C-alpha cells in the first residue's frame, strides 16, 4: 500500500517547482500539481515505483507541458498573460531581470510548440537534471535516442527563440486555422 501522505509531503515541493517553473501561474501550477499525483496513482496501480523523484518529475513535466500547449491554443482566441508579467527571474539588476523574464517566457512558448517527446526530454535533461539513463527509463527509449531527441529539441528551440514572437504567432495562426 502506497503511503501517499509521505510521498506528497516528501516530493510535493519538487513537483510544485517543476510545474510552476514551466507554467508561471498559481492556479495552473496547483492544477498541474494535483494531476501529477493522480497520474502517479494510476502508474503505481500497475507497477512498483523504483524511482519516485524521476517518475514525478516526468509526470509533472508532461502535465505542465500539456497545460502550456493548451494555453497556447487558447491564446489564439484571447490574450492570456501569465501572472507577474515578465519579471519572474532572480536577478539583481531590474533591466536584466526583465530581459531574463522575457527570455524564460519565450522558452516556455517555444516548448509549447515543440513535439511533445522532444520538449519532455529537453525539460527533464536541461531543467530537471535527470541523467540519460533516467530519461531513457521514463520515456521508454534507448539512452542514445535521448541524445538524438535532445539534439533535435535544442535545434528547434534555438530556431524558435531566434525568430521570437512573430514566428510563434504565425505558427499559432497556422495551427489555429485547423481547429
Amino acid at each position, binding site marked *: 500500500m502506497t503511503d501517499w501522505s509521505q510521498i506528497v509531503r516528501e516530493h*510535493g515541493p519538487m513537483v510544485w517547482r517543476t510545474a510552476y517553473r514551466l507554467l508561471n501561474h498559481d492556479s495552473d501550477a496547483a492544477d498541474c500539481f494535483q*494531476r501529477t499525483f493522480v497520474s502517479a496513482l*494510476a502508474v503505481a496501480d500497475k507497477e512498483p515505483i523504483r524511482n519516485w523523484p524521476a517518475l514525478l518529475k516526468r509526470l509533472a513535466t508532461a502535465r505542465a507541458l500539456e497545460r502550456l500547449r493548451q494555453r497556447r491554443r487558447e491564446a489564439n482566441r484571447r490574450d492570456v498573460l501569465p501572472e507577474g508579467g515578465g519579471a519572474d527571474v532572480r536577478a539583481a539588476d531590474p533591466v536584466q531581470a526583465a530581459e531574463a523574464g522575457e527570455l524564460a517566457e519565450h522558452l*516556455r512558448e517555444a516548448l509549447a510548440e*515543440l513535439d511533445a*517527446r522532444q520538449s519532455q526530454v529537453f525539460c527533464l535533461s536541461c531543467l530537471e537534471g535527470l*541523467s540519460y539513463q533516467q530519461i531513457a*527509463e521514463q520515456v521508454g527509449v534507448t539512452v542514445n535516442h535521448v*541524445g538524438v531527441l535532445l539534439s533535435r529539441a535544442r535545434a528547434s528551440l534555438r530556431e524558435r527563440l531566434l525568430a521570437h514572437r512573430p514566428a510563434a504567432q504565425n505558427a499559432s495562426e497556422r495551427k489555429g486555422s485547423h481547429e
Partner: protein
Amino acid sequence: MNDRMDRRERDVLDQATAALRDARIPDGPSPQLTASTVEALQASTPAPDVIRRIQRRKRMFRIARFGAAAAAVMLAVLAGAFWLLDRSASMSFAKMVENVKKAKSVSFVVKQKIGDQPELESKMFIRGNFIRYETPSETGIIHLDQKKGRELNWPIDQLRNLKEDAKDHMKSLGDEDVGGRKCHVYQIKGLAKSLWFGGNQFKLWADAKIGLPVKIHFADDHTSVTWEDFIWDEPLNGDLFSLDDLKDRNGERPTPARVIPTRIYYQQGWTELHSVQADGETPEAQFVPRLPDSAETYDSAKAELSPDGCYLAMAYTHITDHGAFAPYRVLLWDRTQPKEAVIEVYARPEGELQSWRFSDDGKLLYVSWWQHLAGKEQADGRTGTDVVDLKTRAKQAVKLPTYKGADGKEQQAQFAAASADGQTILVVGQGLQTATADGKVVRSLTAPDVNVFPSSVRVSPDGKEAVYATFHREDKSHQLFVVSLAGGEPKELVPAGKFTDVRPSWSPDGKRIAYTCRLLDPKNPPFNYGAETYLKLVDANGANASVLLTKKVQPKETSLELTAWR
C-alpha cells in the same frame, strides 16, 4: 561570420534555459493543496476527467505502440573516453584510441533493457559528423555540427573535464574470446557523476588483431546496455547520409516520387512509405511529411494511396501522456511534388476518424468516423460515414443499413467499400453484406457473427469479388478471405490461429493479392504479436502463395502495414 552567428544562437538557448532554471518560484505547495491532494489520493478517487482519459488510453492502445524506440550515438562517448584514457593506459589501449580517432566510419547495434521494460534495439551508422539512426519505428539522420560544441550535450563534455583523474578509471581484465576473435578486455569505471549511467562502470572488448572495439557493455542492478556488432571503416553507402534539407526536416530528405505502375506500397513505423516491385526488386522509400510544430504523429496504419498513386490520404494521431487519440482530419499529400504541402480535405473536430477510402476514380473519399456521445460512458459513441468530393470539398452522409444488435438495440452498419459506380456499397453489420446506395441490405456475404474489419474490405478491380480480413476475439488471430459479391462460399487465404494484423490489397490486374501479416504469439498479450512480420503474395484463388519480405520485429514494434498495390 558563421562562427559569430553560431555563438549568438548558442547563447540564446543557453541564456533562456538558465533564465528558466533560475526563475523565481513562490513557495509551494500550500498546506491546503497538499492536504487536498493527499485526501484525494487516499480515497483513490481520481478526478472523473482523468479516469475518462486513462480508459481511453486502453481503447487506443493499438496506435499508441509504446512511443517509438531508440537510436544511438556512441562514437562521441568513445572518442571522449579514449581521449581521456589514452595517456594512462597500456600501449595496446593507446593504439586502439588512435585507431578510433582515425576511423572514418562505424556502424553498431545498441541493445537496452531497463527493469521490466521490453528490450529496445537500434542501429547506428556514423560517418564524419553525420549520424543515421534506425529504430523499429523511426529512421532519421542528424548532423553534429562540431562548431557548436555543446550541441548534443552528450557526456563528452563531462568526460573531458575528468581528464586528470583518468588513470584511476581504467583496468585491464586480460583477454577473452568474442565470436571467435581474440579480444583485450578493459574495465572503465567511475568516470563521472553526471555521466549517462550515474558514475557506474562499463566493460570494453577490443579486437586484439585490428585494435578496435567490438563490444561495450554497461550494467547495474536495473539497467543493461550493450553496444555491439561494431563495423569500422566499412564503405557506407552514401545514400545512408543523403541530406538535402537538414534544417527543415531534422535531416530527413523530402524527395518527390516518380509514380511507377504496379508497385506494392507498405509501411513500417512512422516516417517512410516504402514501395517494391512484386518480384522484390527496386525497393524505394519516401519520407512522409511531418508537422514540424506539433505533437501529432503520422498514423501509418490509416494511410490510403489514391488510385493513380500520386496522393496519399493521410492523418496525424495526437499522442499525449494520456495515450494516443485517433485523427480528426484527413490530409492529402501530393507525393510527386518536391514541396511537402499537405491540404486538409476533411475534418470532424468533435470525432475520431476510423478509416477513409478513395472511390475507384479517385474523385471521392469515403470517411468513417466515431463520435463520443455527450454525457455517456467513455466507450459510448456513434459511427457514420461521409463521402467527400475532393474537388469541391462538399460532403454528405452515406446512408447505411441498420440492424438489431445482440443487446436488442438498433445499430448502424459500418461502411466498408463502394462499387465503382457508387450504387452498391459493402457494409459490416451482421457480417459482411452488400447494400444499395440508399441503405438497404441486398445480400449477406458471410455468416452474421463473423467479425469483419471494415477497413480491410477491398473490391477487386473488375468489381466482382471482395477480399476481407476477419478477427477472432479468443486468440486475436486474423484470417483472410475472398468472396464473390454475387454470394457463395468465401475462400480462405490465411488460416485461423496463425497470423494477426492482416492487411490485403488487389493487384492492379486483379489476379493476385498482396497482404501483410504478423506471426501470432499467444504468449504476448494484448495483441499476441509474434516476432516476425511478412509481406506475402497469393493468387486470388489461393494458389502460388509466396513470401516477398520477412522482417524480424520486437514485441512492441509495429508490423509491416500494406498500403496499396497500384
